[in-house]
């Protein structure tokens, strides 16, 4: 009897497979050797598994092909070529490094498949894509958008908590492309602010930027920079570097005796167990997502639990929910369009409103150059009791900000 049931099941599955149409193929290119790319790819696989479990898209199963770009531009470009010509995918997704993406853009332009990208924040990428690429959707905020969104954030925070002041801003930026782009955008924003314009108009008076060599690139001595910051005595101290800089910089700040009102970090990810360090308490950070968003967003909670169940590890960077969003955004568009033909699908994607696990609803709008930009803002969060709490946007708030930054004494 059991055998018979099994046989019928197997037969049914085979029959279904034969009936089912060819799969919709999504090709992803990410750096698998890096935690950002690895977790983004896993989250994409999770999304695809969920979609297929629910019957696929347009009655067709979805197939995800992931290729490692090894953080090398020519490998990233070759990966796009392979997805286009060998795997014959319908869509490109993926992300991370700006230099890898710059090498991919000419290849993508040749194929002009619908592309949804979750990394590469450099404005140069936007310029390279150009205004005519209507097939190109970019979900991660551009570097200049981030600077503007924080201006909005601090303005709203200063309104909600009148004691918060952000008059004097000191930016410590890593000397590579990532940090320098932040510095350049702050310089531009301050120029605007002095003319009474832009997101920082009412709240930034004075600005100073000093570069440092990131630990990730063989540096890691921040003390000369911190001395300058201490002399400058800012209200808001922001550092734009990598996860490897987070704890050593705090240690050295303690050593130097530098404790500004707000100690803000803006790396793309945080080290493992950062919250357990006594130095972490009260550190403010810029990011797109944190596990505490589960409290205010059902989409985030669902994603978080499903991810842990599937991979037995915690999503550690915001690229995980962003990768999940990447697939679902495309799926929503396909469902709305009822087809994967390019023109109607682009139309449908322009109208998609997807409640993402990032917290916000994802909607497409033009940015400086391209027509299809997704998220424009990051969030302002704070490490409190070992967890990242959202302090802005206020509607997603999970805790009130602690300030001034607790003194170094006793930790």
């Amino acid at each position, binding site marked *: 009897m059991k055998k018979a049931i099994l046989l019928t099941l197997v037969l049914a599955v085979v029959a279904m497979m034969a009936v089912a149409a060819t799969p919709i193929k999504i090709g992803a290119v990410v750096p698998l*050797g*890096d*935690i950002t790319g*690895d977790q983004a790819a896993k989250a994409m696989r999770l999304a695809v598994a969920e979609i297929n479990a629910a019957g696929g898209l347009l009655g067709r199963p979805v197939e995800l092909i992931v290729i490692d770009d090894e953080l090398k531009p020519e490998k990233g470009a070759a990966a796009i070529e392979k997805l286009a010509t060998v795997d014959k995918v319908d869509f490109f997704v993926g992300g991370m490094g700006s230099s890898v993406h710059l090498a991919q853009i000419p290849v993508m332009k040749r194929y002009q498949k619908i592309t949804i990208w979750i990394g590469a924040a450099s404005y140069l990428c936007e310029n390279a894509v150009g205004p005519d690429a209507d097939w190109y959707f970019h979900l991660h905020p551009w570097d200049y958008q981030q600077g503007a969104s924080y201006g909005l954030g601090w303005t709203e925070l200063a309104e909600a908590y009148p004691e918060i002041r952000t008059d004097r801003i000191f930016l410590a930026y890593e*000397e590579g492309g990532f940090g320098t782009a932040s510095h350049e955008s702050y310089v531009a924003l301050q120029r605007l602010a002095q003319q009474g314009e832009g997101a920082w108009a009412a709240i930034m008076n004075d600005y100073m930027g*000093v*570069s*440092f*060599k990131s*630990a*990730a*690139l*063989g540096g*890691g*001595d921040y*003390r*000369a*920079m911190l*001395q*300058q910051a201490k002399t400058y005595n800012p209200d808001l101290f922001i550092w734009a570097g990598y*996860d*490897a*800089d*987070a*704890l*050593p910089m705090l*240690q*050295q700040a*303690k*050593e*130097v*005796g530098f404790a500004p009102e707000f100690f803000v970090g803006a790396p793309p*990810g945080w*080290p*493992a*167990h*950062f919250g*357990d*360090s*006594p*130095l972490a308490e009260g550190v403010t950070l810029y990011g797109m997502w944190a596990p505490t968003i589960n409290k205010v967003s059902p989409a985030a909670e669902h994603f978080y639990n499903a991810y842990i169940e599937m991979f037995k590890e915690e999503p*550690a960077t915001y690229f995980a929910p962003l990768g999940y969003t990447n697939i679902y955004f495309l799926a929503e568009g396909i469902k709305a369009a009822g087809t994967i033909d390019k023109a109607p699908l682009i139309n449908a994607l322009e109208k998609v409103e997807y409640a993402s696990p990032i917290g916000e609803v994802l909607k497409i709008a033009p940015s400086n150059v391209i027509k299809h930009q997704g998220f424009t803002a990051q969030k302002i969060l704070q490490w409190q009791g070992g967890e990242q709490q959202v302090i802005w946007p206020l509607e997603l708030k999970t805790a009130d900000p602690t300030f001034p930054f607790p003194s170094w004494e006793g*930790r």
Partner: protein
Amino acid sequence: MESISFWKKYKNILFLILLIVAVAIWKPHAAIYGLQRGSLYALAGLPLSLTLGIVGIMNLSHGDFLSLGIYIVYMFSVNTGMDPLVSILPVFILLFLLGAGVYKLTITKVLKAGHLNQLLLTFGISMILLEVMNLIWTSRPRSVYVDYASSSVTVAGVRFGTYEFLYVVFAIAVLIGLQLFLKKTRLGQASFAVGQNPRGAKIVGINTSFVYLIVFGISVAILGIAAGVMVPRFAIFPSVGSSYTMKSFCLVAMAGLGNLTGILISGIALGVGEAIVQSIPGYAGWSDIVFFGVLIAVIMIRSIRRPSL
């Protein structure tokens, strides 16, 4: 006669001390930071000088052994709660065994094949180490927190960190230890002889392959010391040690082959130079130029003095 040789021997050290004092008066922080970080460069550079000088191996996996040592210290701390500085001892032994094992399995087979094959071999080893660490621990940084690593004191109105003086202490201690080993122990004397003239050493009956094994093992083990003192102050990630390969090569080139004291002097000189540039507002981005500029200048000056370099 004796005073002249004394002057010759300690000329460089005296210059260095004068340099540090002068910088300390001008920019006290630059002098302290430079001394501390420069000593760390030297601590990581000493073992490379040893392998290059005695075994004659261009070890491109130098920095990756350092990273591995750092991860082993981390594992000791996570699993047994051992203080990183205490774990130096077991890590030293473990890395010695590892270094000797790698030597026995691979490097001994390319000793006769020439520098370039050794370069390629160690490049391959470097790649394997780096990627295995990435597979085990991922690229996400880890850390070990100890409260004493960020303590500081204020002397004459200048506040500075105390922990990193351990770099200075350990660099000097390792240097003295190596000097004693090379001059006072039989094995060390044999190593020194092998480094000076391998063929001659073999003729007088020194077991060169054993000497190489020990020296390579010790070199990797010293990286364990560097790892132990680095862990409290560094983020731990797979390529954390990578930059020390090139830095160490630069120190060896600047000091000259076989000159261990020169490594310490060069390391500190470069560290102070870097720190000075970093302390000038707006010019931090040029600090690498100091490192490489000084290096090139020293090599060029030496080549003029001794054209057969």
